[in-house]
């Protein structure tokens, strides 16, 4: 079976992640959707790396993982700060902040 199939799989996962970001109100679940999209992109990088037969794609996927880890730390800290301020992590409520 060709590695191209993994690109299809990554497309499906990316769409599911995007749907989660668009549909869910819970900030943590929406954030997990972002993580799923990042991982889908990683899967395409690794699949293309296998197709080309070079390792650069894997190095790039590794960098994406490191950046994603840093992003998760800051993102979750922001979610906790918002929760402390508003006692809620619903994504709808910050929109009510505008005067």
């Amino acid at each position, binding site marked *: *079976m*060709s*590695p*191209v*199939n*993994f*690109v*299809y*799989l990554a*497309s*499906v*996962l990316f*769409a*599911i992640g995007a*749907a*989660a970001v*668009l549909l*869910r*109100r*819970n900030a*943590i*679940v929406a954030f*997990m*959707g972002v*993580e*799923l999209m990042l*991982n889908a992109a*990683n*899967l395409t990088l*690794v*699949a293309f*790396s*296998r*197709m*080309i*037969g*070079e*390792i*650069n794609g*894997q*190095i790039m*996927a*590794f*960098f994406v*993982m*490191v950046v994603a*880890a*840093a992003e*998760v*730390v*800051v993102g*979750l*800290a*922001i979610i*906790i*700060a918002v*929760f*402390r301020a508003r006692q*809620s*992590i619903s994504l709808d409520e910050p929109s009510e902040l505008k005067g």
Partner: protein
Amino acid sequence: MISPVLFWFVAFITVIPALALIFSRRPVHVAMAVVLVMVGLAISYVALDAPFLGAVQIIVYTGAVMMLFLFTLMLVGVDKRESLKETITGQRWIALALAIGLGALLISVVSRLTFSVSERATVGEPTEVAGWLFGDYVLVVEVLGFLLITAAVGALVLTHVPRLFPKRTQAEIQAARIAAGADPVNKAFPGFYARHNALDAPALDPEGNPIEDSVSRVLRARNQTIDGSEFKDDNKARRRELGAKEDDA
């Protein structure tokens, strides 16, 4: 080449749990489903000749990132349910249509292209990856080090809460206790000076009388204490032996 059984297995344990992101009500269930997705992706990395990335995926994503999500869920309350009230009418269906459209678009674009698959694969073993990371990409690695430190400091700053009241010192706490009428010294330990060195036997004061306060309130409420009277008589006899007057006791 990759075996079809492995591909379909990976597809099954990534796509089905990923749907929990859209349909599951409880955030903890979503987090556990995403853990399964990450494990499936790790399997696919190993199948795609990237064993190092597979291991990193397990360690970083299932081990660190998803556990961090679970800790955050614990902090903000596991039972927080989402409100299903739509603030923008029809937003749910528009979002679903957009997501399905995006998936269809991606799949159709990929299916129109022809890819040449190289027979020769560079296996991403740790030595090979390390050679690239600390060779050609060493500057990027250093920048990522800065990024990680900045992220850690940023998280500390964001979650820091300034103290509302000045910290109370031990002396202040003690003064407050005395002012509230507490005994300035410790209560006697149960069993102290008594015959039975046990929690249920009250301590005896120098007169030989049991000190009720020395026994835990819980034991007293359950009537599980020895009242100490048996020691009292014994004590009287002992004191008589020592030549004390009867009326002293």
